[in-house]
């Protein structure tokens, strides 16, 4: 019997490698930008920002799909700290390049892609299975809601 991973993906998106590597896991998607320092608990990976749609939810071990970074210059340091605690995202897909998000991806050393040929925020939903091959610049998506 074919596993879900062996079935062809429902959607494929291409983009530019930010940090190389391959990761596969469950997507956590937000249409809102994320603050690092002061916006997340850097020990647990939980979003703590008031009014944020992910407030109370952790990105640890998830493929984090988000528009980009905002807020404090402590963004990379806060996300870097999640790596020390084993609570970094598995991979990141962001739409808008900022120094915060790019440096955060580098020091977390997780596969990261940006500059997409299609919008991951509309094509990926929380809970979808996603394979990020940053070296090839390819994102494969298996929809959860089929």
């Amino acid at each position: 019997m074919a596993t879900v991973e062996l079935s062809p993906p429902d959607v494929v998106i291409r983009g530019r490698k930010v940090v190389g590597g391959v990761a596969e896991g469950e997507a956590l998607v937000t249409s809102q930008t994320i603050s690092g320092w002061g916006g997340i608990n850097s020990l647990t990976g939980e979003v703590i920002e008031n009014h944020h749609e992910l407030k109370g939810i952790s990105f640890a071990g998830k493929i984090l799909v988000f528009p980009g970074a905002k807020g404090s210059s402590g963004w990379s340091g806060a996300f870097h700290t999640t790596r020390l605690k084993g609570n970094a995202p598995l991979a990141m897909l962001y739409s808008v390049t900022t120094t915060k998000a790019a440096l955060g991806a580098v020091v977390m050393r997780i596969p990261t892609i940006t500059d997409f040929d299609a919008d991951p925020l509309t094509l990926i939903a929380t809970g979808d299975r996603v394979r990020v091959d940053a070296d090839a610049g390819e994102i494969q998506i298996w929809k959860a809601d089929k």
Partner: protein
Amino acid sequence: MVQLTGEEQAMLDGAQGAAVAKAMDLLVRYAEALGAEDFVYTDNVAGVPGSSPQWVKDHYAADGGDYRAVFSRFDLDSDEVVDVPRMTGFSCHLQGGMDPDQWQAMGMTEEAFANFRADEAEVAGHGIQVMKTCTPYLAGNVPVMGEHCAWMESSAVVFANSVIGARTNCEGRESTSAAMLAKRVPNWGFHKDEFRKGQHAIDVGVPVDSIFEWGLLGYFTGAAVEDTIPVLDGQISAPSLIKHKHFGAASASSGGVEMYHMVGITPEAPTREVAFGGADRGERFAYGADQRRATYERLNSIGSSEAVDYVMLGCPHASIDQLAEIARLLEGRRVHENSALWVFTSRAVKATAVASGHAAAIERAGGRLLTDTCSAISQAVPPGTRVAAFDSAKQAHYLPQMMNIEGWFGTTQDCIDAACTAVWKGRLD
């Protein structure tokens, strides 16, 4: 691929030692993540090099668990521990974790203070200026127009780009620590002319004057334009330094504004056309009475109890004129027994406040004048704090969610009144 000069390639290859090589390695990875084509030289770097709480040092126990280990493994993201030489570039340490004299009043332990002292000795020993402030431009590091910098601290970055016309991205801890050694940052973003042009317009339709009003406008602006560059025009008149400080800090917190233009006011916006680099583009956001009220209500939506037990001023760190104003507002009054007043500034500005009598005036009224940090950075509030009040939209944005307390945002006068009565009476006129 990022193009390296001969000197940069030699640094990467180890010609200036292992630490510089690791710094260049990190900067190359960072430049490629950004899609930068080359580097820009910088001799003005502000960050938080190597400072860490004890648990981070303990995390690197196998590597020695000391400053060297943290600087190598965390700051330079190096797999190996390297000897860290004196920094070659003009390097400054921004805000830190506690007041160097009043740490006990902040609830810090002997162990945490010993760790703070040890880190500070290392920072000074590595040729880094111990500024310990989020406002380096008020404490001895004022870049000039066009100067390429590598600064952390979103409120300082937006000030440097917008008010001074210096050029810096919102750098992080790791990139600034690397730049202190390599004197390079990726030539991307705000280092380039075309990146510095306005992207959206904010039409200000109500008068904006006090730091309270500038904070509201900043918070609105960040929420409207997120991480892009706004061009403000309309009922704004030449803001003083502290008004820029509060506007920029608020816009960087609610959005991610790293540069703004004010037509006829900021140096790269002599005209609307120059600010946009041509005709208007992007969206036009109107800031009128309705938007002003909605912004005020959003900032105050985290307050319900009016029993204020903590007032925090000095975010970003208070300037000398703000300390003079706070001392004046406290004249003949005392902080209420059910409340506390902590005012934060830099060591440099505090020295002037001591000489001018403002420090004594604040202390005589029962307040504390603290340096180096703030409640958000140190995660320290007076014991039992449940409801805080601020004159900074930035602090109102961050501290309540970090400390799980209620918060109010108002004028400096509202805050002093709350400190002296333990009751919040702030209202929008």
